[in-house]
């Protein structure tokens, strides 16, 4: 294996993507979490896992399980493709593998952040409950003669930053391929040589050797 040929950012991306998958399978590690009061409600979110409960009751939203499955498959495919591509970026199929792999962590990461921002905006506008993306705040709700001040704390976990690193590494791997690997080992377009006009076959006189074999 030629070390110069290895796409190191791509290999690092394969490793971080694999880590994210393992963290999801082993610990269902969230990327973002929210807690209301002292364990009154809790949400642990990531594109790979969803877990939320209100007063000890799990809130199941089936579609999220299927979306999580889709994202898990995408990350697995991304990790495998990046691993194969990174070790052999000059193979005929490598460009296809790179193009297949590098967009997935970037798209999933961006969609997750956009979803959080949009959800926070929608909740804030339609219910008047301001949920911060990061940090602590208190919601004030009045029902009848009762006013409740409910503390909410939200945070991005270190796994979120690992996912961010994965997305960045995926982009860097693409740039690395474009700027470093491709110029160093340019692919020469296959020049089709003009077909030689075949001269009419002339019967060669049988050599003594061949005649001897016979």
């Amino acid at each position: 294996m030629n070390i110069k040929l290895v796409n190191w950012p791509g290999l690092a991306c394969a490793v971080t993507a694999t880590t994210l998958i393992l963290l999801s399978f082993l610990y269902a590690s969230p990327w973002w979490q929210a807690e209301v009061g002292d364990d009154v409600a809790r949400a642990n979110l990531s594109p790979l896992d969803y877990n939320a409960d209100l007063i000890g009751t799990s809130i199941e939203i089936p579609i999220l399980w299927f979306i999580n499955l889709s994202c898990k498959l995408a990350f697995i495919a991304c990790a495998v493709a990046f691993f194969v591509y990174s070790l052999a970026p000059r193979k005929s199929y490598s460009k296809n593998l790179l193009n297949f792999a590098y967009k997935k962590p970037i798209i999933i990461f961006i969609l997750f952040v956009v979803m959080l921002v949009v959800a926070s905006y929608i909740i804030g506008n339609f219910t008047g409950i301001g949920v911060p993306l990061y940090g602590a705040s208190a919601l004030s709700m009045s029902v009848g003669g009762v006013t409740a001040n409910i503390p909410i704390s939200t945070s991005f976990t270190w796994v979120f930053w690992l996912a961010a690193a994965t997305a960045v590494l995926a982009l860097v791997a693409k740039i690395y391929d474009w700027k470093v690997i491709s110029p160093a080992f340019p692919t020469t377009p296959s020049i089709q040589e003009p077909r030689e006009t075949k001269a009419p076959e002339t019967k060669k006189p049988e050599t003594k050797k061949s005649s001897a074999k016979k």
Partner: protein
Amino acid sequence: MDIGKILAAISIMIVVGPLASAVILYRDNVIALIMPDVEDIMEKFEEYFPTVEYADYEIVDPETSFRVLLNMTNNSDDTFTFDIMNFSAYCKEHNTFLGYGYGENLPLTIQPKSSDIFKLLITFTQGGQTDVETFHRGETDFYVILREVTIVVQGITVEVADEMDIGPIEIPA
């Protein structure tokens, strides 16, 4: 077959496959695919808050204070913690300000499916003492109204604007 086309097909299958499976599995009730079971949550919500029953009272100091004991039952499967309780007490009959009160044995953590005694200590003001001594000595059905009730449970601060009746309380002759 071109590897690019195979990878494109895999990409589409990764996205479409699970979502198509979801729609097929929930084809009879697509709403259930996106909505959580609200009834289950509502049932649990009713169980979550402990039930409160008046249990007893104790005279701490015949001149200045008494203690109200409330039996609190946690019917949920999780612990329930009372952090703070403050209130003002008034005589129900004369609307006299009797004194301040606070939850004495706080924070009180009630284990799942169990009960505990919550102690409220009421300390009389001079006006409150006069009211009780003058109008209610020897009564067996003295009622106190709690106002400006502030409770902190599970980290959530609840301010109750409505009045809460406590009693009947027996006042020694």
